[in-house]
Every structure is written in C-alpha cells, then in structure tokens.
C-alpha cells in the first residue's frame, strides 16, 4: 500500500468549455491534515464535489487506498471509509442531536440499515458511537435537543461531528468554519486538530490564517489547477501564493 490514502490523477471537471477542475494531481498522505486553499473561484469546492461523489468528474482518476472510485456514488464511498461535512450546515433539523449522530453511525451498515423489523434500540453499538462522539464534541448536555435548536456554532460542530460517526479513515471537511463567529473559530480548529489524531483529514478552507497552525500540508489552488503545494511555511513564503492569494486579500 502506498503512503497516500487519497490520490487524484489529472482530475478534470468540465462544465461545457469551462474547466472548474483542470488536471489536478492531489496526494493526501495517510495520517496528515491536508488543506486545500485558494481564492474564490479557484475550484476548491468543485474538486471537493468530485471527491465526495456529488459531481461526476469528467476525466482522470481518484484513487482511495489504491482503488479507483471515480464511478462510485456518494453513499458507496462511505462504506470504503470516506466521510464528509458540508459547507452549508446540513443536519436532520427536527431530530435530536443524539439521533443525528446515531443515524450517521448507522449509515455505514449499508443495506443492513434496511432492517425493518428490529428496533433501533437493538443495535447498541450505534448508540455507543453517538454517545462517544457527543462527549468528544462536548455536546453531552444537548443530546436530546433538536439539532435545529442548537446555536449556530454548535450546529457547525455537530456538522463536523457527524462525519466521524462511521469511523472513516478519511475525513473531508468543506469550510468547517464557514459562517462561524470569530470567537467560535478556535473551538473548531481545536476540534479539527483533535480529529486529525485519529483520521486523515482533507480540509477545504477559504481563510488561510485559520489553517496555518493545524495543517501539515497545504495545497494552493488557482484557476482550477494546483499552484503550489508544501508545508505551511513554504506556502507562506511563496511569491506566487502572495500574488494570487494574499495579494488579493491585502
């Protein structure tokens, strides 16, 4: 097995003549927190959609654990050990926090979830997973609250938390701090670096300063292609990155 958990080869996503993702070779090393950053329109989210299966890449390969998964539908990628969170909070609003997490744990059962005769109480392991994750997210006190009634910051935390319930090897997080208040952001970055100890994390982020401290590897995208890849220090000191990214921000 190679050192890389996830690898793309010449990945393309075209909308007619426009290439949102234009020949990306991304390599995510096992056990790292790897961040993809880039200014608006750089193709981060399009790349993310190809990886999650939300969009079908138009050319290239996506290797996960050495297996080409480019034709796998999103739900099929969960069973392989991939999990994702959403940029726009996407929860089961009218179900309890605990039930949200239990459902996420149950999702890895695949067709086993079609069992219609046993009570959900019967499968203790899913409840145990939910309780363990509740604790890790520090949401124990809100277990029976409806997800829709949590504060926005807590909803973002639950959003990320749901993705670890199926014990994935790869966590793909789409702008987890999106819409969070400045005071809540350290909460999220702490959570992500905590999760990074157990999972390989692929993080998509718009805000560069947030990810510098927690990432081991950073890929900078621009115009659908990889501009620079390296350690946070290398990226910070790269002239090209300053021009397209920091320059734009300044």
């Amino acid at each position, binding site marked *: 097995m190679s050192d890389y958990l996830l690898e793309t080869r010449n990945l393309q996503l075209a909308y007619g003549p426009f290439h949102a993702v234009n020949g990306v070779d991304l390599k995510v090393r096992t056990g790292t927190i790897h961040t993809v950053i880039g200014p608006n329109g750089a193709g981060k989210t399009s790349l993310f959609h190809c990886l999650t299966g939300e969009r079908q890449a138009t050319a290239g390969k996506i290797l996960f654990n050495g297996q080409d998964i480019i034709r796998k539908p999103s739900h099929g990628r969960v069973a392989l050990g991939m999990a994702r969170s959403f940029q726009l909070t*996407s929860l*089961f609003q009218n*179900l*309890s926090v605990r*039930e949200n997490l239990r*459902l996420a744990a149950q*999702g890895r059962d695949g067709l086993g979830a*079609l069992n*219609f005769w046993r009570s959900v109480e019967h499968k203790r392991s899913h409840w145990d997973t939910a309780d363990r994750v509740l604790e890790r997210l520090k949401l124990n006190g809100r277990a029976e609250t409806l997800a829709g009634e949590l504060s926005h910051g807590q909803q973002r935390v639950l959003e990320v938390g749901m993705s670890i319930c*199926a014990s994935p090897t790869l966590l793909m997080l789409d702008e987890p701090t999106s819409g969070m208040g400045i005071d809540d952001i350290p909460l999220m970055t702490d959570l992500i670096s905590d999760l990074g100890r157990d999972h390989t994390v692929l993080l998509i982020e718009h805000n560069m300063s947030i990810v510098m401290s927690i990432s081991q590897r950073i890929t900078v995208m621009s115009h659908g292609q990889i501009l620079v890849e390296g350690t946070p220090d290398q990226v910070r000191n790269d002239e090209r990155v300053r021009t397209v990214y920091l320059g734009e921000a300044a």
Partner: protein
Amino acid sequence: MTDKNPLAVAKGHGHALLLLLIVSLIGLPLILPSATLATEILIFGLAALACNLLLGYTGLLSFGQGIFFGAGAYGAALLMIHLHWGMLGALVGAALFGALLALLVGALAIRRKGIYFVMLTLAFSQMAYFLAYTLSGWTGGDNGLLDVPRPNIEIAGHVLVDLADPRHFYAFVALLFLLIFAGALRVIRSPFGSTLMAIRENETRAAAIGYDIRHFKILVFMLSGAITGIAGALYAMLLHFAPLSNIDLMMSENILIMTIVGGTGSLFGSLLGAGAIVMLGDVLSELWPRWLMLLGVILILVVVFMRGGLWGGLADLVKRLQPSRALDAKTKETL
C-alpha cells in the same frame, strides 16, 4: 422539546398508543350508527396510514395511492370471482398486486424529487384510471365490477367466522387494522424507519452518510402499496362492488386529505383523519348534496390553523391542560 422528535414519541408512547387504538377499535362500532360505517372508517384509516408512511415519515407526496387502492379492489375481486380464492388468499393477492404496482410506479417516480415526483405520480394515476376504464372486460369499466363476494373464513370447508354479518366483518377488519398498525409502528422504530425520517429531514445528508436513498424509497413505496391494496380489497368486499371511482384521481386526493387532516406526524392521526372525513361525508351528504365544498373549508382550516392535523391539535390540547395542572399542584404545595 423532544416531543417533536417522532422517534422519541414512538419510543415512549408505543404501548399507550396501541392501548388507545384497541379502545378506539372497540368503541367505534358502539358509538356509530352502523358497523358498516365503522368498517369504512377502518378501511380508509388503513389507506391513510399507508399514505402517511410516505408523506409523514419519508416526505413523499404521492398522488398515486388511488392506483394501489383500485388495484387491490380489482385484484382481490378477480381472484375471488374467477379463481374462487378465499378471504386470506384474496387479501394476500391484493397486497402483492399493490406492492408490485408500487414497485413499477416507484421505480420511475423516485428518480425525480419534489414537484416532479408529484407530477409523475399524478401521471401514473391518470394512466391507471384510463387503463381500468378501457379494460372493461375485466373491471366492468364505468359500471364497476359487480357481485364481489365476501368469503367467510373457512378451514377445510368448515366455516370458522361468518363474515356476512357486518359486525363480524367489522371485527375482522379491526383485527387486521390492529396487526398492520402494530407492524407499521415497529417498522417506524426500526433502522429502516429511522432512515426514512432522515431522508424526510435531509436527503442530501442521508446520502452523504452512506444510505442508498433509492432502496429506501422504493421499499417504503412498496410497503405503502401493499397496505393500500389490502384496504382496496376490503372496501370491495364491504360494498360487494368495485366501482371505477376506486382508482380515480379523486380517491388519491381523498386519501391524501384524510392523511393531512389527521396529522402527518402520527399513525394514529391517520385513523382520526379517516374517521373525521368518512363521518363528515356520511352526516353532511344527507344534509346538503354540495357537502364536498365544506370538505374544502375543513382542509383549509386544518392546514392553516392546525399544522399537526387533528392528532397534533389533540396533543397540543393535552399539553396545554397538563402544565396548568402541574402549576395547580405547585401552588397548592406553596399554600
């Protein structure tokens, strides 16, 4: 707060709900003028319950329920008339026929979401109606299928229960209702049922955490089709007649109205909805031939003022009474 979580409600009040149902099933024929009317309520209660599995628990608005209702009626009637099948065989046949048609309709309709799904079920509904109308050699067309038998329950030629007596038939239908209700309650609390609610809440997320949505939707569609088929079969046996209107779009509409008026959050609500609409029809149609206009008014009132339907309204009422009682107890204590 957790009351809004249907799973918590189902968990906590499962036995109480069954008890309430048993009391209602026993009480219904006692307070109503005829056992036939009570039977009709249960039959439509079954159809509404099946519709509720789709609408209330999976978030699928189907205008195709009349297809399965009509198919169950024709299917069971034809099996009994031509092949001389008994009561249970005819019901199983109707359930299978309903499930099979639901598989066909569902497999195509669930490829689209939202309004397009609704339109597809509507289209299938129209097709089924005209198919039944055209195949008049089998269905009797406009005249309906006449002389539908209501076989007794027999073992080796020995009559166990004589169902020609309307009260006996009511008891039989009530028993079926209880069994199907308990089964549906169980399904809702299973991994399958909990996933249906996840799909209702957020389809994208449900797919993202690993569920193949199509499997769940097709299976719940088939389950709904099977139960609706049984309801259709029982209705044909009740009337000794399977009218073309069974498979009409109006039937789909009626079943939907009963489901919504009763409340989409609860299976018991479906029985309330069916009871309310069937009884209103019975009472109002004698007073005023244009009573359907009032049905529209009632539907509007429920949708605007009682979002949880009759069941939600009752639950609110009980809740509103309870805290005041708790408050009374407190004030008494302080006194």
